[in-house]
């Protein structure tokens, strides 16, 4: 949390809390930042982890299961990067294979069956790029999640806690609401990747980060995220974030549970349908 601690603007008013996009990216990747399982531990009571996609295997980059949010049974699906080097390697640094997306979908279907709301926690540099990932249909696995999540008949909230790498993040982010921690980001491509493709110079990642509009605040302005959650200065103060989230999630699910499912799905569809629509009508 070194980086976050050193930000001078952090304690001032909202506008003053703006900072360089790339600093946010660095903060989202900073060592010691809470990972998916930290959120599960602090938000969920009696969490039970369920493994496997029933198709190929169990992806350690994804932790899924059930537990209680206060007194409400919920399904939680979290990408996990790990803290120690050993753990990181085991978790493949939070980059999922297709079986991870299929495990997520399996748990979502169970949530739908038993009427549990779904919390998705996203923290990944992207879906894994590798031979096996392609062989087992990375693209197809993500595509299926996008389709199925759009009509999943139970509330879904996706929380971005760190990196939100492109399609790999979106594969768990077709939700009723997208909430982002202040130092998380969400982008179509990493700033480094963008700089090296467009300007053949990976060191231009700072310009790329600014141009891509990838910070939590940008995403709220662009209508992609509904909430930006303020982060505390010190890592030990992260408890405050957990308490806040517990209340916010609980209230949001209570509210959406009162909505008829058809209306919930209509709103979810519209959330994504409207992005880019205005422009089309203005022809």
């Amino acid at each position, binding site marked *: 949390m070194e980086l976050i601690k050193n930000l001078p603007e952090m304690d001032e008013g909202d506008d003053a809390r703006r900072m360089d996009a790339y600093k946010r990216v660095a903060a989202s990747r900073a060592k010691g930042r809470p990972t998916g399982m930290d959120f599960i531990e602090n938000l969920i009571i009696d969490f039970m982890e369920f493994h496997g996609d029933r198709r190929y295997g169990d992806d350690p980059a994804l932790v899924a299961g059930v537990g209680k949010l206060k007194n409400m049974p919920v399904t939680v699906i979290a990408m996990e990067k790990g803290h120690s080097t050993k753990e990181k390697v085991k978790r493949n640094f939070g980059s999922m294979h297709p079986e991870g997306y299929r495990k997520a979908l399996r748990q979502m279907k169970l949530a739908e069956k038993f009427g549990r709301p779904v919390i998705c926690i996203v923290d990944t540099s992207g*879906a894994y*790029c*590798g*031979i096996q*990932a*392609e*062989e*087992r*249909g*990375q*693209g*197809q696995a*993500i*595509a*299926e999640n*996008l*389709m*199925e999540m*759009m*009509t999943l008949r139970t509330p879904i909230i996706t929380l971005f806690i760190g990196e939100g790498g*492109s*399609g790999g993040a*979106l*594969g768990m*982010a*077709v939700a009723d609401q997208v909430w982002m921690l202040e130092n998380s980001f*969400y*982008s*179509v*491509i990493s700033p480094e990747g*963008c700089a090296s*493709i*467009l300007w053949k110079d990976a060191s231009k990642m700072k*310009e790329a980060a600014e*141009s*891509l*509009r*990838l910070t939590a605040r*940008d*995403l709220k302005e*662009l209508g*992609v995220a509904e909430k930006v959650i303020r982060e505390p200065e010190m890592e030990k103060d992260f408890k405050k974030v957990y308490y806040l989230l517990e209340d916010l999630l609980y209230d949001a699910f209570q509210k959406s549970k009162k909505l008829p499912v058809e209306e919930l799905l209509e709103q979810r*569809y519209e959330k*994504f*349908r409207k*992005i*880019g*629509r205005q*422009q*089309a009508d203005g*022809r």
Partner: protein
Amino acid sequence: MLKKGLFRKPKNQLEDYGKTSVREMREQHPEVPDDMFLSCPACKGTMLAEDVNQNCGVCPKCGHHFKIKVRERMEILLDPDSFAELDAEMTSRNLIEFPGYDKKLQSARNVSGEKEGVVCGTAAIGGFPCAVFFMNGDFMMGSMGTVVGEKIARIFEYAAERQLPVIGWTVSGGARMQEGILSLMQMAKTSGAVKRHSDRGLLYVTVLTDPTTGGVTASFAMEGDVILAEPGALIGFAGPRVIEQTIRQKLPEGFQRAEFLLEKGFVDAIVKRQDQREYLRSLLALHSKEVLV
């Protein structure tokens, strides 16, 4: 000691071989029209362009599928005069003020002669009415921005309302990074529209052509009820170069080609371009409501 003249410029054309551009060589032989002959990148054979064109842009010797222009593909596949274009005038703007994007859009319009990266409309194939979309590889590598996403979503909504099947030809480098997160959201938007169309019991067929990658593979390209591919087409989520850089090893021969996906179970069938029309006609006939009664 270096000899004088070791680095001299070549004096005659033979020494200079390989440095003269094809265009210059053609200019030296004005009696051969520029586009009369084609060289096949797969079998290296030289053939009359006319023969390739009459064979749907497929090499008559080895069957290699040349990349073809979007309107040429439409002519090959759709019943004559059956196509009615929808949302033809929709054009992209630089929504997040990404540096250099306006210029890129302008040059893409000039190069491709099209307004955006996909052509949508209604048509008939073998007499069966359907909604169609054809992605355009000449327009910023067929990348998906908000307009491509919007046009795809609209064609599915249009087809759902009118109970039409959708047939789409994909070619894409993925989401268009110059539109940032807004392009990524088109993956969700199009997938939602596909799902609604599907939930009405309507048929959706994709034909994956070379190359189909990234965000398009991870959304509507892989969401067809029936997924077809052209022979040899590169199909994947991550591009081969990105994978090689990530895993630091060479990829096996044929990796991510249509035949590989067929073997792995992600494509229903590989259909040559010359056969696609007849294949789709049969497929449409089989799914048509009249036949079922």
